[in-house]
């Protein structure tokens, strides 16, 4: 922790970055994002197992971009999100500065290439609980799955927390905001909820970095992250392309192979 | 250098001199051989064509035993053995789903981590040392006979050029021999017909012997027990078929190197051959 603070202070003092984005203790002992712009503010940084939020989400926001270069305390999922954001041209490679933990050592990753290399050391799979849940759902009958999701989604109030917390949902104009035509009904009712979550999952297929932030952000506890996890896994399984592993764009749904194999097209 | 060793059946039977000369030469070069304990048949000849599961399980057991003994690299001097080991290892690597079934069959875990090497690869690494330790240059004209399993199929063995290979030629050069330009390096010797159809062996190997002599070779050098059987053990059938008497000896590459290193010919099993290892005075030899 002290090493991290030390590095953060160094970066600020040298003027390499304008701010360090990390975690601090918030109300009720939760971990909240914290922008440290002075060495004093750095002292409030914490990093422990309670820090789970994917901070990459903030980097595409106008307000943060206006700050200048920001160093980010980056968990593996955050690192992946940053790579994907560079691939999707939402961040410039030279705007990247990551503080990543490698055991007890703090590493400064100053470029996409450095992140790629660092990430290559780790195979960060989906949490086993989520994997098990997806398997459990797939073992159900189709009707049971329908009932499960209808039950779950009935609690959705369409607050869009899942969307807003997602590092890859950076669009300024979301399909949900589209009203000519009004693709998806605005109100939170059975049809609109199903459609919203289906669209969100499709838009993240091949792009989801599997941080699970959307699921954690949901105020009514719907496991919405399972949808994007599933879509990403389906894409990866079928096409062998994965999000968040390279600064070079390799999006499965805008590329193809003539011999892609499916079994259902008649 | 320490290396695992899988002799296989031939090296304990008809080609005992291959085992003897391999051990003698490698020991002389400071290589320590660790024989895989409790090894079994590699599945060559019949098993692999009759039962696919067996073709995987037999080599897998050998490799699993090697893994248990902490062997990371395993030498199988017999070309058929190394070919079987490689084939099985590659198939299991490409189809990991088959591993569980094979593990159940052999009753031990299999990882497939041991690297399989043939005798020419091992000798190739030691070439400089061999050249330096050569006390009695093998000043003969040599027809290098690779046969089929050492270089084929290329996707399995991935060793040397499948047509007109070079590794043995370079090896014998290092001990002072002159390889002859020979188009029959990989022609068929008759292989397993050695036992069942000696007439075919006589015809096929006869062609090899005759051409090697015609191109001025003093000796045919091999690295496969099967090749050796056909060219040596079946020489009387060959000569009968050709209607000519050819006394050109067939030797294992390890024997050639052993002689060059000045090792005892008996330790190399030279006396075990059907065709005596005797050389008439040749131009290459007298030049020395």
């Amino acid at each position, binding site marked *: 922790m002290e090493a991290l603070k030390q590095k953060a202070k160094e970066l600020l003092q040298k003027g390499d970055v304008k701010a360090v984005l990390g975690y601090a203790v918030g109300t009720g002992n939760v971990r909240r994002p914290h922008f440290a712009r002075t060495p004093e503010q750095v002292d409030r940084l914490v990093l422990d197992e309670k820090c789970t939020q994917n901070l990459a989400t903030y980097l595409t926001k106008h307000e943060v971009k206006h700050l200048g270069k920001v160093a980010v305390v980056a968990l593996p999922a955050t690192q992946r999100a940053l790579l994907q954001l560079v691939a999707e041209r939402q961040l410039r490679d030279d705007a990247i500065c990551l503080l990543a933990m490698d055991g007890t050592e703090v590493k400064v990753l100053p470029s996409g290439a450095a992140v790629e290399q660092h990430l290559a050391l780790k195979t960060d799979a989906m949490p086993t609980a989520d994997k098990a849940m997806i398997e459990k759902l797939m073992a159900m009958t189709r009707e049971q799955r329908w009932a499960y999701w209808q039950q779950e989604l009935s609690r959705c109030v369409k607050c869009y927390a899942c969307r807003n917390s997602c590092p890859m949902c950076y669009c300024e*104009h979301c399909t949900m905001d589209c009203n000519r035509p009004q693709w998806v009904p605005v109100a939170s009712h059975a049809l609109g909820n199903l459609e919203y979550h289906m669209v969100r999952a499709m838009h993240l297929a091949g792009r989801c970095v599997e941080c699970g932030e959307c699921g954690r952000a949901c105020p009514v506890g719907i496991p919405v992250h399972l949808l994007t996890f599933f879509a990403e896994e389906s894409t990866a399984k079928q096409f062998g392309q994965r999000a968040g592993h390279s600064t070079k764009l390799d999006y499965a749904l805008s590329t193809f192979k003539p011999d892609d194999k499916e079994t259902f097209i008649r | 250098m320490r290396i695992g060793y899988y002799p296989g059946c031939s090296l304990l039977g008809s080609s005992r001199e291959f085992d003897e000369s391999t051990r003698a030469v490698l020991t002389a070069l400071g290589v320590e051989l660790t024989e895989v304990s409790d090894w079994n048949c590699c599945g060559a000849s019949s098993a692999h064509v009759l039962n696919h599961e067996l073709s995987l399980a037999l080599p897998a057991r050998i490799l699993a035993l090697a893994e248990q003994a902490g062997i990371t690299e395993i030498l199988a001097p017999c070309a058929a053995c190394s070919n079987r080991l490689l084939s099985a290892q590659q198939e299991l690597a490409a189809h990991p789903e088959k591993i569980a079934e094979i593990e159940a069959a052999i009753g031990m875990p299999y990882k497939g981590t041991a690297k399989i090497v043939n005798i020419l690869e091992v000798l190739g690494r030691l070439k400089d040392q061999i050249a330096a330790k050569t006390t009695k240059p093998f000043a003969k004209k040599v027809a290098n006979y690779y046969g089929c399993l050492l270089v084929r199929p290329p996707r399995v063995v991935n060793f040397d050029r499948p047509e007109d290979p070079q590794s043995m030629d370079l090896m014998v050069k290092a001990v002072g021999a002159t390889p002859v330009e020979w188009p029959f390096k990989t022609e068929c010797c008759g292989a397993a017909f050695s036992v069942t159809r000696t007439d075919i062996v006589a015809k096929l190997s006869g062609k090899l012997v005759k051409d090697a002599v015609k191109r001025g070779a003093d000796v045919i050098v091999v690295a496969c027990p099967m090749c050796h059987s056909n060219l040596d053990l079946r020489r009387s059938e060959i000569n009968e078929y050709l209607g000519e008497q050819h006394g050109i000896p067939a030797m294992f590459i390890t024997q050639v190197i052993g002689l060059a290193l000045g090792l005892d010919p008996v330790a190399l099993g030279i006396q075990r051959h059907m065709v005596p290892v005797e050389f008439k005075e040749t131009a290459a030899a007298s030049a020395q």
Partner: protein
Amino acid sequence: MSRIGVFTCHCGENIGATVDCAKVAEMCKHVPGVAHSVDYKYMCSDPGQRMMQEAIKEHNLDGVVVAACSPRMHEPTFRRAVSNAGVNPYMCEMANLREHCSWVHEKNDATTQKAADLIRVLVEKIKHNTPLYPIKVPVTKTAMVVGGGVAGIQVALDIANGGHKVILVEKSPSIGGHMSQLSETFPTLDCSQCILTPRMVEAAQHPNITLMTYSEVEKVDGFIGNFKVTVRKKARKLDEKLCTGCGLCIQKCPNKKISDEFNEGLGTRTAIYVPFPQAVPNRPVIDTLNCTFYKTGKCKVCEKVCPTNAIRFEQEDELVTIDIGAIVLATGFKLMKTEAFPEYGYGKHKDIIDGMQFERLASASGPTAGVMKRPSDGKEPETVVFIACSGSRDRSKGVPYCSKVCCMYTAKHAMLYKHKVHSGKAYVFYMDIRAAGKDYDEFVRRAIEEDDVKYIRGRVSKIYEEDGKLIVKGADTLMGGEPVEIKADMVVLATAVQSNDRSEELAQTLHVSYDTYGFFAEAHPKLRPVETNTGGIFLAGACQAPRDIPESVAQASAAASKVLGLFSQDQLTREPIVAVVNRQAGPTYSYCVGCFLCQTACPYQAIEQEQILARNGEVIKTIARINPGLCQGCGTCVATCRTKAIDLQGFSNEQLYAEIMTL
């Protein structure tokens, strides 16, 4: 409120007998937005069209649904009619009551109801249609032809004769290509150079053609009608204007032992050289890799003997950028080398040669002056074996395709050999004889029947040397796989035709697609064989697939006609069914967030980057822009765009949404 007219056609009995057209017309009257609805016997007839045009004026209609046959049949007819009545043609849609309804369903109420439904869908669509106008793109009427072989020369001549400027770029010092290396040509056995050389001269002298030999395309920007091509003119090391082509430098060059590319390594040349005597332009180049001066700093004999002082040792490559309207690729092919055949000795036997080497041996202008001499010792070969499909149709060699020309040239080679060596024996090993073409099969029969060439159906497994002979071991599959062994003096491998060196690199420079084997991909295998997927770039000859001379020439003229068609108007007019990226006022400027995921989805490289600049020139945002000159209107980008920033004119989100909501 829209004022839409619905015109239901009976198509005689074709629709009328199954669908109650009068009822349909009546039902449509009550659809909101419909101002006028009638039925008529034949809408496409003159009176029918006139009736429609009058109704448009009388009822002040702003959109029209014609419920008749398939839009694939008469959409242009009715759009023209509507346009003549003063309504934008893209405000007219056709409901397919015939092919999709009356012809395929029983006569009953459900069918009539379906007819009305089909119309209602389009009425709702039209409410969201907007007038569209043809896209105009200016055209620079200069063509560039890349590759100066027979295909490239033909394209250049055809375009030039059509009255437009052509720049013919060739990487080697002379135009002529592979055809200039050939001895005689099948199936007529006329001398290749005799027919090609006049064309080469014609191209060089044509007032509309500029030759750029010893030059390569370096970079291509822009799009159809408006390319900017950068060409690297490699330094010939002499002043082409001063050089008269007298050849004195070549005679005096002391370095005479360089392997001659034109003769496929069977002859030698000097360091300053022209590739062959009939070269166009007849100007030498200095091969700096082999020139003594460049290696040792001494020599300069050529400079001393040159009567016009044209030698320029210090000359460097020059980059030239040219405005071009259309590009034709005619970069040809290469042959697989004999080194690629381990079973035939890895290319180490001098007397195992490839087809192009045989051409040089047989050519009157070749290294042996057309006398049959084998390369190793210059002896006349008494037995020659020709092996067709060497590498072709062989997956293990990476060439599963048929090289197409080998069956014919192998027959020709065997024939030429027999004509030159009457007592000689010629054998051909083949897999199948593919001699489809005018007078082609007759030609092969002639080789077999009149010239006594022995054709053996089977493969050759191995060739090795024994007592100065090449032992060719094969099988005769028509004799039940009987092994065949031939003692030959020379073996000719009809090696596979492969895409030319660096063709993939060139394809990437030009943004055209290419297949697994590096051949350039045509836009459609049947219907657009000389076009590429990139507008304004066309294909001719063997750069697309293996081709013989007649096919290359025919394809060249086809490509030229495409270019001439493009150049026939000052502006290129295109259907406005193209994608557009949404634009709006700041601070968002566009729904587009610039993720460019659409870029790889576009089959036409039509998606570019556009920078939105502030007044002070600062980049505010980078978004996608569709180049309407390149977009073909497939809409794949639209479905890829998450923010719905891209839409397809004519099949917009609103239109399709409206259609579905009518169901």
